[in-house]
Every structure is written in C-alpha cells, then in structure tokens.
C-alpha cells in the first residue's frame, strides 16, 4: 500500500513455545515479539538451537504456539493449520515431490487452490522463466542439480503468490560459489515479486548482505532487531557483537551521560564518547564494543586511547591484524587495510598506541 509503507505483514506478539512437558519441557521460544514489515527482506539470525526455525515453523503452521498471537495483516493465524495460511515455505531440504516433474511441482500449490487450468499454465511458465528453468520443465526432480532443485523449490513456493515467503536456511546445502550466486538471485526475486521474505540463517555474512532488517536470536529470545548496519555498528548486547563479526570488549568507567551518548574513562585514563542503546541507563562500570577496523595503530603516548605492547602481527592479504597487549592486561585487535606504501612496520615486542575512531565505540546493555 503506497499510503501505508510501514504496514506490518507479520506481527508476532508474546509468543512462547514449549516442547515436551513436565521435567522434559524445553522452552524453544521465550516470549518473542517482533513485527515484520510488508515487502521486507527480514532475516532471523542465530546459532543452531536459538529458536529461529521454531519461529518460522510457527508462522508456517507446522507448530502451534504455547502462548501468544501471530498476526498476518492483522488477522490472528496462530491456530490455523498450514494449508489455510497464505504463506509458503522453502524448506532446507527443498522437499520437492520426487514423483512429479519440475512443472508439476510448481503447479501443485495452484492446483490445491483450485485455480483454473489456463491460469495455472501461464503462472507455471511465468515461474519457470522467473527462476530460469524453462528447459527443464519436464524433468524429474531427481534428474536436476542441487542448485536447480533450489530454484524449483523457490518457484514452487512463489507460484501461489503467498503473502509471506518463509525460507528455512535454503542455501546451506549449496557450495560456496553457488551460494553467492543464489544470494543475489534471492534478492532479485524478492525485489521482482514484492513479496515479504522471512529468511532463517546462521550465516552472519548471508544475513548482512541480503537483509533489509535482521533479528539476532539466542536461547529462544530476540536480542536485537535492526538494519545490517545497525546490528554491525551498534550491537546492543555482547552476544550480538560476538556473533556478528569480530569485536574488542573494553571495560570502562562511566563518567558522564548525555541523552544517548556516554563519556567513558578507559584504563589508560583517556576519555572517549560512546553511543548507547536507548533506554538503558548504564551502571558505573560498563563494557564497550569496538570493531577491529574502527581503531588505528598510533605511536605510544597520551594521544592514544590505549597503550600496550604488540603481541602478534597477522598478515591476511588485504588486511593485517595487530594483536596489542594493553597495559591493563586485556588484548585489543586492530585491523588495518594494507596499502602499497607500507605503514609503520610493527613487530612483536614493540610498544604501540591504539586510537579508537570517534563515534566508533558502542556501549553494551548491562
């Protein structure tokens, strides 16, 4: 809807899911609430067992929540069986019907919706060309490659024009090259169809490159929801910072708070300004996150944020990692891009300073 660009396609409200009962009860989802906007590429990111697939299965209808509501455009669908929900799933194993051809697989959903024959025919050929599989329409699904099966699974799920497409780690079975290609392909399909995608993955790189927004999950909870940039640059919790990318964690004293920024005194005595998440008043002592590429190596001295001894220099082609043993005993990693004119040549044992870029530090919720 053009007048309501921020409409929610899916609204998960206070959903809990407990498997088993009594002493064997396992809480897979612990009171999760999240809104997924229309036409959005939304990713549920987290390690295995964090509840991301459970949340997807609850939206699809393969599981029913123990508590809470799942709204699809305002209507509670939490109690409906899967065949009554206008959402489709791309399964991790693809789950293509082995006794049907590629075209028969794609037409299955439309047939079950009792659409007219000629509509099914045109829709199937549209789908075949959308995923570039026209030549293989009459092949058995066992006679095509993994990447092609993946595309058939996508076409099959998109053919009935679902309100929301659910994707359960669909790229995990593909090799690296194919996965890269499919990431771009998925993004293109989402753009062309305008369907809301909910994508489940444990691969942070996949999440960062494809998503409009990401929800980072751990132990049945959603820890943070935000754009890839938000999640990467402004992690709100230690788990998020640790799970996505590499991070330096620094313990520091809070000396002043102003709106959404805090002034922090580091162990060296230097003071830096750090961003903090809204509504989280910091305690006297708190943890800062600094990404390795958001700091530079400088000469030791008062101008540096932290001072220490070079412990290790790791050459990585495009970058070099400097592991600095800070004087307070912690270790700080600085990533610097290598350029033709070699910078200061540092070797283990030398003294050096670390300068944290302004606006690069993020205060974690305590």
């Amino acid at each position, binding site marked *: 809807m053009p007048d309501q660009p921020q409409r929610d396609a899916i609204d998960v409200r206070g959903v809990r899911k407990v498997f088993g009962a009594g002493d064997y009860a396992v809480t897979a989802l612990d009171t999760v609430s999240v809104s997924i906007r229309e036409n959005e590429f939304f990713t549920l990111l987290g390690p295995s067992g964090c509840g991301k697939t459970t949340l997807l299965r609850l939206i699809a209808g393969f599981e029913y929540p123990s508590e809470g509501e799942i709204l699809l455009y305002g209507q509670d669908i939490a109690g409906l069986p899967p065949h009554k929900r206008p959402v489709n799933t791309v399964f991790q194993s693809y789950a*293509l019907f082995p006794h049907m051809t590629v075209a028969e697989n794609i037409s*299955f959903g439309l047939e079950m*919706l009792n659409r007219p024959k000629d509509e099914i025919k045109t829709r199937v050929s549209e789908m075949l060309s959308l995923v570039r599989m026209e030549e293989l329409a009459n092949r058995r699904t066992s006679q095509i490659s993994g990447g092609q099966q993946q595309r058939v699974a996508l076409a099959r799920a998109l053919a009935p024009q679902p309100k929301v497409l659910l994707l359960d780690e669909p790229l995990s079975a593909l090799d690296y090259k194919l996965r890269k290609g499919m990431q771009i392909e998925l993004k293109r399909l989402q753009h062309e169809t305008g369907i809301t995608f909910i994508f489940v993955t444990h691969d942070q790189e996949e999440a960062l490159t494809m998503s409009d927004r990401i929800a980072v999950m751990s132990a049945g909870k959603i820890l943070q929801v935000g754009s890839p940039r938000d999640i990467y640059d402004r992690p709100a919790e230690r788990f998020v910072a640790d799970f996505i990318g590499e991070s330096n964690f620094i313990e520091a004293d809070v000396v002043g708070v102003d709106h959404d920024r805090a002034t922090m005194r580091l162990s060296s005595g230097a003071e830096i300004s750090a961003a903090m998440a809204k509504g989280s008043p910091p305690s006297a002592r708190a943890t800062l996150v600094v990404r390795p590429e958001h700091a530079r190596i400088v000469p030791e001295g008062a101008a540096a944020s932290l001072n220490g001894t070079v412990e290790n220099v790791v050459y990585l082609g495009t970058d070099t990692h400097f592991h600095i043993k800070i004087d307070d005993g912690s270790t700080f990693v600085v990533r610097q891009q290598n350029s033709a004119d070699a910078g200061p040549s540092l070797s283990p044992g030398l003294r050096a300073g670390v300068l944290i870029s302004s606006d690069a530090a993020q205060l974690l919720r305590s």
Partner: protein
Amino acid sequence: MARRRNFDIRVQPGFGLIALFTFFSLYLPIAALVAYSVNAADSLSRWDGLSLRWFISAWNNQAVQDASIRSLILAAWAATFATIAATMAALATTRTPRYPGLTLKYAFINQPLMVPEIVTGVALLIVFSRIKVWTGYSGLGYLILAHTAFCIPFAYLPIRARLENMDLTLESAAADLYATPWRTFRRVTLPLLRPAIIAGFMLAFVISLDDVVITEFVKSGGQDTLPTYMLGQLRRETSPEINAIATVFLALSVALVTLFYFVNRRRP
C-alpha cells in the same frame, strides 16, 4: 599388514562346505519334485522317461480346477483386505510421535507371526462353528476373514518400512501448498507408498496361497484350496499328479516373489 580386525565368516574353516550342504539339502527335494513331475510313470518311485501327462491330467481334473480357482479367489480377497488394513495400521503407527503402548500395538499387529498357526486354527474353528450355527452362512467368507488376519503382518512390514524411510517434510510441503490432509495423502503419501503397497499385497497373496494349517481347520465341506486338496490326495493314494500341481505352484510363487523383489527395488 595389520592383524585382521573384523570377524569375517567367509574365512572360517568349513564355511564353504556348510554352505554347499545347506543349499543341497534345501533345493535337492525341490529338484526331485520338479524332476518327477515330468515323469511318465504311474508311480512316484519309478522313472519312465519324460512326459507332460501329469500336467495335462491335473489340468483336466475338475477337483484340481475347483481348488485352484478357490485358492486364487481366496488369496486375492484376503490379500486385498490385508493390504488395506496393513496400510492403515502402518500409517497409524508411523505418523505419530512415539508413545507408551506403541510397541504393544506393533505386537498386536504382528501377533499372527508369533502365535502358532495350529492355535489360531483351533481358535477360529471354535468361534466360526458357533457363528455358522447362528447365521447359517457357511461360505468362503470365513476363509477370507481368517486369511486376511494372518496376512496382515506380511503386508504391514514392507509398508511400514517404506513409511518410516519417507521424508516427512514432503507431507509438510504439501500442507504448506494448501493441500488438505486428504489431498496430501492422495497426491503425495499414496503415490510414494505405491511400490510398498504392491509389494505387501504380493507377499500377502503368496502367504495366503500357501496356507494349509488354518485353512484345514476353517474350511467347510467342499471348500478345499489347492494345498488342502494336495494334502488330501497324499492321504489316499500318491498320484504323480500332485508333483505337477506342486511344480506349477512353485513356479507361481517364485514368479510372485521375483516380481515382489523388482517392484520393491525400483524407487521413484
């Protein structure tokens, strides 16, 4: 080379000899039977040269014809009912999370495999004779019912095996694509199950065709099946005709089991 770590029965002394002896004792009597079925002599103990006379004589024997047709009709009905029951039982015992009592159900379904046939035979004789008195009906129905009962486990085993190996996400995918439970079953589960259902049917058919003990107890007068007819013939005189019948019977069983093997091996 390092010491052999796995126990390999093929290198044990005498293995080959024991294997040979086993095959010999299993197949020699059958070979003799087949050989004597083409014997021209009137007696089972004399060899008089090749002839198909006993096949022809058996073919023209009205009693043999009746018994054969009865056997085939009985096997067809019993295998059909047993396969339907077995398919439903297999679906009920695999499409459910494990629960206490499930093992008991397996035992119930497979009970005919454990209980001695003679016990089932006597039990059915007692029950059916009462029902015959009450209803006055003494047709083939009793035999069909009895055969269905002991054929169920044979049809059940291949179907259950297939269902257990079937990817459950296929059914989830069908439901996700708007198929009602019934259409999911019709369009996905059943087509994938078809080879196992055919295999189960053929196995049940052969088992029914072969049965002597239970049939002997349950049948009413004039309801001889081929095996009970042959048994009856042996009691009186030993006509070489039964060699010919047995040979045809053997060929039919082998053909069915071979077909069973090929159907079961082919995967979609």
